[in-house]
């Protein structure tokens, strides 16, 4: 049962990712990428990481996807189609894949069975975030505030003339 579910989710996710990379129409590619995002969220649910799965759905499908489709909307269609095959992309893809594969295979914890951990509740995540990881949290907050102010400054430029 679990294996079948894993297989189905994996196939859907990979198919979505593949379609996102190959479909000719950008908007279709973007929607397929969203399918891949949802598939990843399903994996998180499958692993019992409910919170992470929901946040994946929230951030990627709710926010990043809207950002992507708006980017497509605001750019022109068919701006100089690439006439020859892009070998650079393949090199980068293979390099990234090789690097990740090497890192995964080198990780010792993959081989050993995971110990029983208590279910990760939202409460525990909150506690850990505000105790052990409070500095990274503050830094992320600062970074996001800076990005927000930056975006506002960019928009205000128009009014100053």
């Amino acid at each position, binding site marked *: 049962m679990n294996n079948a579910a894993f297989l189905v989710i994996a196939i859907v996710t990979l198919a979505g990712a593949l379609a996102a990379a190959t479909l000719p129409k950008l*908007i279709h590619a973007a*929607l397929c990428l969203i399918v891949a995002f949802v598939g990843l969220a399903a994996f998180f649910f499958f692993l019992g990481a*409910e919170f992470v799965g929901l946040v994946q759905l*929230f951030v990627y*499908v*709710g*926010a990043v*996807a*809207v950002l992507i489709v*708006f980017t497509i909307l605001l750019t022109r269609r068919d701006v100089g189609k690439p006439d020859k095959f892009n070998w650079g992309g393949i090199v980068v893809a293979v390099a990234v894949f090789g690097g990740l594969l090497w890192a995964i295979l080198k990780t010792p914890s993959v081989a050993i069975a995971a110990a029983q951990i208590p279910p990760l509740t939202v409460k525990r995540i909150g506690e850990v975030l505000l105790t052990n990881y409070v500095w990274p949290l503050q830094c992320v907050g600062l970074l996001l505030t800076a990005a927000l102010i930056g975006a506002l400054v960019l928009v205000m430029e128009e009014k100053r003339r």
Partner: protein
Amino acid sequence: MTMSGDFLDQIFISAKQWLLSLLTGAPDWLMQVASSLINIAALLGVFLTLFALISVLERKILGRIQNRYGPNRVGPFGLFQPVADGIKMLIKEDIVPARADKLLHFLAPIMIAATAILTLGVIPYGRNMTPFAIDGGILFFFAVGSTTELAVFIAGWGSNNKFSMLGAMRAIAQMVSYELPLIITTLPVVMVVGALSPDAIVAAQNGYTFGIVPHWFVTTPWGATAFLLFFVSSLVESNRTPFDVPEGESEIVAGHMTEYSGFKYALFFMAEYFGMFAVSGLAVTLFLGGWQAPIAGLQFIPSYLWFFAKLGVLLFTFIWIRGTLPRSRIDQVMAFAWKFMLPMAFTCVVAAAVWHYQGRGVAGWLWSLAVVAIVYLGLSWFLDTGKKFATRTYRFAE
């Protein structure tokens, strides 16, 4: 609680148990699937009925407000109007524009209806009556709800029509803007309860002072403010007057629904109402005590009746507002979100914290009222442009 009251309260749970008991001996996964299917069937049955009922009631109430009869031809008091509407929608021609993106045009209504139905699943409709009880229910609601924007975009893009695209852009702009106050006003409730599960939130609002004042969050200053902000945001999220600019008939035909006809249009319509039910249901859960009775003496009335009574009051307010207020301009809507709603929503978080650290009693009540009042007065002073009924200036016209 008496035995008979208990029986009535749990009658649907018992009915489900009885249905499942017919399957005894079946494998575990079959039981799970059957249990989910029963929940889904009940949810769809109840809300499709409510949708039919509210669509005719809305027209009746609007008719009353506008001094006319409203639908009164089909059946007694026009009550069978939704049946006639449904048949009409089903037999209408399904028109797909020649230059439309066929796949996306087809996908959008399905996606929007699916998300609306999914969000209904996490709301507790009565004692032990949450169809899909998960730990992060509130988060699930917003995570799934945020995909509505994507569906609206697909509808606008797939139609290949400028009115559709403009409507979709407006819808996304206002939905993204108002999602912030919507989510931030739920934050104080989550903070005070310490859980993201709707059941825990309802349970935390149990209890009465002197037997008549319920411990609902709306009775605290921060809760009342958050509820009002949440309600306004929910008007926007469900594209209702005065925030129905995305489908402003006088400007952009019907927004993202311009190119839809027949049953696809009906799906959009249904999704809009389901979204309204879901967000009102969440407001009831978060601030109005969910299925809890308003005074201790009325606890014998079954919990689900209380839930639907509160939901009915909120839905009536939605209709009332639609009959009363004119449509606002898109720039007014956006400015209101960022300049007023968002700061007030953050204030609610602070006021809730103050309430908590002052011991959740009378002192906390007064202190949080002071916080809300100071920020409200400050904002009113700060946002007052002093332009009172000045001659209207046009930037692009004339």
